[in-house]
Every structure is written in structure tokens, then in C-alpha cells.
């Protein structure tokens, strides 16, 4: 049995909005998942579905609103849900704040050595006034990982080598690099503290097509050599499908389906996953001429005011009265294959 490295239970993240009563933007809604040691969990969804927020909330770069995060047996956050649903006279309902005990949370400083992140935009995430050597060295210094100067520069060299850059690159500034190289620096920075778990937040979407596969291969090599565990966030399903052992599909803050990568591809249970899969363009003219495509009507609703019941019901071709009223439960329909849809309950 594989060992769970990270477990998330009923995680919520709401961003309050000034001048608006209630919970504000409901970016992550009741997400539960776990990640095994050494595996890659892919997370896909459209922009604004909360996948990046989920990744950052797990690292507590955003403080969660409620839920539980357990890393390697240690609870790093536990808080009660601070809202309750109140029925209105006109039949609708609103979320109203209630008092809950203060959340239990650990100091993240020592956790940062174990949990790291690679950001989407490499140019924006590297300090333009620091050399690459300083950027990588800063993490080493903060955690006091190297005792002597020689050891430190040796370590920086080793890291640059690991990500396919040259030693002399340590003295250059980020703007002197191409996008692909900048992303390599971002990866070296994350690796500097010898983490076990890395959140890869769209690490390749800003890169050119021919560079993307280089970085994907490098991430795979690193995982093999260093035994890393990834949470890989991307909107490009074909890349996620390639790199992940399991994939979670998010829609409007909620996880709608979670399954082995192959299983999800062959047998998607949730209508949204089916749509998403059929919408991905395949670089094969014959396939695109023959395959059936499900085209969704309309746009993604606002997470400020998400639809009642199942959040997908406004665009779902199979939506029924039940879907409008109550949210489906996220449960295991087949071994290792979770989904949240009323259609599957029959």
C-alpha cells in the first residue's frame, strides 16, 4: 500500500470582498484529496476554477478558511468551517458567518524545507536585481544548509548542473536568460532546500512549445532521481495526462473527479471531465475530423455567486431538478475513481 505524503480534508478558501456581505469569492470549496509518496497528482481545470489557489493554500501561502491539511502525519492546519447556511424567505439561502474556535496551525518555517513551489511566470517570480547565484543561495542561507562559503558555491554549482545550466550562469541576472532558462532557475531555487514535495503551478504554460517538453522531461528525471512528489497544476490536459499518475479535475472551486490518469482518459465519469477531454485539440487531422465533440453552452459562472446545488448544473447537458437543489457528494464510484455527480448515484 502506498504511503500518503499529503492529505487534504474539506479544504475551503474564501477571499472576502470589500463592500460585499457574506463569504466573498469562494475560490476553493470543500476539496478533499491525498497524494502518495513519489507520485504526481495532476490538477486540471479552466482559468478561475481555483486550481492555483488550492495549490497555494496547501502550502499555506494563502491561509485556508477551513479544513485540514496533514503532511507526513503532521497536521499543519486544522480549522472549523466558519459559515452556516441560512434559508431566506424567498426560498434562496445565504452563507452567514458564525463563531468558531481559532484554527490550529503550525509555524511553516521548517515546513518550507519540505514543501516547495515552482511558479507559472518565471520572469515575475525571480528578483530582477539579484543574480541567479544569489537567488538560489538565498534559500540555502535562510535555512542554514551550508556551513562554509566553498560548500555553498559548490551546492549552487550542483543545482545549476542539475537543471541543465552552466556554472558561469550563477553570476548573471534573470533578464539575461530565455524563458525556458528562467524556469530552470526557478526549479533550481525550489530544489535548493532539498524538498520532498513540490507544487508545480503551471510551470510550462509560459514556455515555447519546443521548450515545454525539455522542462517536462527534466521534472520527470528529477522525480526519479530525488524521489520527489509533485502536485502538477496546468490547464493543458495533454501535458497533465502525460506527467501525472492520477488526475483531479476542478470546476469552479470544487473537485469534480479524481482518478488514475489512464482511467480518467478512457472512462471519464463526470460530464464536465467528458467535455474537457473532448475539447482538447488533438494534433492529428484524421482524429479531429472523426471524433465527436461536446461543446458546452455558456461561460463559467462567477465564484462570487456560485450556482446552488451542483456547481456545474448551469452548463451541464444532463442537469435535473435534483442537481439544482443539492450538491452531489464526492465519493468513490470505482476503486480509486472518485467523482461528484448525481447521475452516478443510480
Amino acid at each position, binding site marked *: 500500500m502506498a504511503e500518503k505524503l499529503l492529505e487534504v480534508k474539506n479544504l475551503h478558501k474564501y477571499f472576502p470582498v470589500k463592500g460585499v456581505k457574506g463569504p466573498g469569492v469562494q475560490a476553493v470549496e470543500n476539496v478533499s484529496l491525498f497524494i502518495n509518496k513519489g507520485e504526481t497528482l495532476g490538477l486540471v481545470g479552466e482559468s478561475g476554477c481555483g486550481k492555483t489557489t488550492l495549490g497555494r493554500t496547501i502550502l499555506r501561502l494563502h491561509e485556508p478558511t477551513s479544513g485540514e491539511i496533514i503532511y507526513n502525519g503532521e497536521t499543519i492546519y486544522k480549522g472549523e468551517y466558519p459559515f452556516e447556511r441560512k434559508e431566506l424567505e424567498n426560498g434562496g439561502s445565504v452563507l452567514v458567518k458564525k463563531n468558531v474556535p481559532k484554527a490550529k496551525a503550525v509555524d511553516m518555517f521548517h515546513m518550507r524545507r519540505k514543501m516547495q513551489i515552482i511558479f507559472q511566470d518565471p520572469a515575475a517570480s525571480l528578483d530582477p536585481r539579484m543574480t541567479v547565484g544569489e537567488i538560489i543561495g538565498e534559500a540555502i542561507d535562510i535555512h542554514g544548509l551550508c556551513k562554509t562559503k566553498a560548500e555553498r558555491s559548490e551546492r549552487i554549482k550542483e543545482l545549476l548542473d542539475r537543471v541543465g545550466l552552466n556554472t558561469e550562469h550563477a553570476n548573471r541576472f534573470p533578464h539575461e536568460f530565455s524563458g525556458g532558462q528562467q524556469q530552470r532557475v526557478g526549479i533550481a531555487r525550489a530544489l535548493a532546500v532539498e524538498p520532498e514535495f513540490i507544487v508545480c503551478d503551471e510551470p510550462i504554460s509560459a514556455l515555447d512549445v*519546443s521548450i515545454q517538453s*525539455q522542462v517536462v*522531461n527534466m521534472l520527470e528525471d528529477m522525480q526519479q532521481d530525488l524521489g520527489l512528489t509533485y502536485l502538477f497544476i496546468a*490547464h493543458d490536459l495533454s501535458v497533465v495526462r502525460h506527467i501525472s499518475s492520477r488526475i483531479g479535475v476542478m470546476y469552479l472551486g470544487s473537485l469534480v473527479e479524481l482518478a488514475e490518469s489512464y482511467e480518467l482518459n478512457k472512462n471519464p465519469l463526470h460530464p464536465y471531465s467528458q467535455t474537457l477531454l473532448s475539447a482538447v485539440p488533438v494534433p492529428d*487531422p484524421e*482524429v479531429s475530423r472523426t471524433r465527436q465533440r461536446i461543446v458546452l453552452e455558456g461561460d463559467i459562472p462567477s465564484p462570487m455567486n456560485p450556482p446552488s446545488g451542483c456547481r456545474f448544473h448551469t452548463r451541464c447537458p444532463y442537469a435535473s431538478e435534483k442537481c439544482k437543489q443539492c450538491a452531489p457528494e464526492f465519493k468513490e464510484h470505482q476503486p480509486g475513481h472518485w467523482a461528484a455527480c448525481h447521475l452516478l448515484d443510480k
Partner: protein
Amino acid sequence: MSENKHLLEVEDLHVSFFTPAGEVKAVGGISYTLDEDEVMGIVGESGSGKSQEAYAIMGLLQSPGKVIGGSITFEGEDVLAKTKKEMTELRGGRAAMIFQNPMTSLNPVYTIGNQLVEALRAHDKAISKEDAAQRAMEMLTMVGINNVEQRMKQYPHELSGGMRQRVMIAMGLICHPKLLIADEPTTALDVTIQAQILELMKDLQKKTHMGIIFITHNLGVVAEICDKVCVMYAGKMVEQGPVDDIFYSPAHPYTEGLLRSMPRVDADSHERLIPIEGTPVDMLNPPEGCPFAPRCPHAMKVCLQKMPPYVELGEAHRSACWLRVQEALEKKEGKNDG
């Protein structure tokens, strides 16, 4: 009308940017033809010159960019010889363009209706305001927008990204152009919205029979919508041909590399990706010879010295690669011996 009259003919087009750091040859000799009722894809990475080439056709090159050679013929007229006024008439009239980011190409302080009507009246001076508004509403309905009367009064920020792109398409098509240039129209959109827009464009193309140039870096989108494809690398066209030839028998190492390096969503097993090694070309100091040579696994001595000529490989399928030149020569010799 003669048979070989094309809607658009681009001959050996050169575009350069004269920057303080030196001349950047953004487009270095591109030729192709486009007929009515045909969709051509231009694929390339960022900086490959695919957008600049399209801007040149529309006369939208920004300073310090200049067309320094070649010719562009649209419906038998020389586009490069046109005056500013004539270009203004052409743009948005017989030839229209859709841009990547609809938020920056729509004016935020005017309503959608206002902008659509303006586009129409700029080209058709005789049309009354009421008729123009009517046409604008018809166009919006055609691109799949509901409650058109209400939408006409809305501002761009009130619409979603997909909606805005639909408005841009409606605006592009409002004067019934013969040629539509779409510059990465779906890149800024989500996959489900991208699917909607692609379906819409296919549908409109069937109805209007216009010629479309579809610029993108996504080979999946190309397979979806295009009849033929131009592959660009560092300002040069490295391969050109019907969509099936490009995907099933690519004849340039760059095209091959692109196809191999892409993970496929319908793959059955986990195969390691085969990336194209190296980094994209620095356009200020492009390599001599074939621009792809420094990254090419098959590079020979000659590749580093001279740009290969185009070799015809079949109907409308050509490729600029010394490997193909070699093969062609060997074939010829074989024939002579026999």
C-alpha cells in the same frame, strides 16, 4: 477569370526591424498562396515572425518594422503599392483581422453596438444608423450571442473572454471580407471556450467561403481547422503543405520535432517525450545557413553554411531542408543510371 488567380499571393516577403541593436530579419523570404474557401494555418513559436508576416499583409507593421522586399497581391492588386487611405479602405473591408487578446483590441469606453456600427459605417458611408444597427445585431446573432439588443448596449468589460472574442469575430466579418486573418484567436481562451470558438469559425467559414489565415502555435488547433499549413522557424518558412502531409509525413526535422515533442491526450501508454534540444534562435544574431541547424539532430556541414532551397515533395508540399535536397539528388542520379 483565369484559373490560377489566387485570393492572396505572397511572394518572397521580407520584413525587417531596424532596432538600435541592429537589423532583425523578422520575416526572411516567405511565399504562399491562399484561395477562397481555404483555411491556411501558420505555425511557429514566439518570435518566429508569424504575426509580423500577417501584419505586413494588413499594412499594420509598427515602426521600426518595414517590408524590405517581396510582393503581396490581394485579389490581383498590389497591397504594398497602396496608399494609406487605400489601406484603410481595405482593412476591415475586404480583409479583416482578429487579434489574440480581445480585451485590448476593443475600446473600453464605447459600447459593443457603437463599435460594431462604427466598423460598418466606416466602410459603407451610405448606410443609415438604423440599418447599421440592424446589421450589427444580425452579426451578433450569427456568432452565437443571445439577447443581442441588450448586448449592444454593454461595454467590453461586461462580457466574458469568449463573448468578447465572438464580438471581435462579428466585427471582423461585418463587412463580408474575402480574407480573414486570425492571429492566435483562441490562445487566451480556456479549452472549452476555445472549442466553442473553433466550431463557430468552421461554421462561419462554410457559410461565407472566405479565405482564412489562422496563426497559432498549437498544432492541435491546426489539425482541427486548417486545410494547409505553413511551418515557420526564425522568420523562414521551413515547410509548407496540405494538413495531412504535414502531420503524417513531415519532411523537415523541425516539424517532426514539434510533433514528437507534444504529449497527446489520447496516448495509450506513457512514452517519454522527445524534446527539441537547445534554445530558440536569437534573432539579432541568427545563425548562417539553415536557422534550425544548431538544434537539428541531422545537421550536416552544409546546413551551417547555406540556407537550403525548397524541394517539392508532392502536390503543394515543399520543405527547405538539405536532407530532402540530398534525397532528391540521389533519386535523380538513380534515374539517370537506370
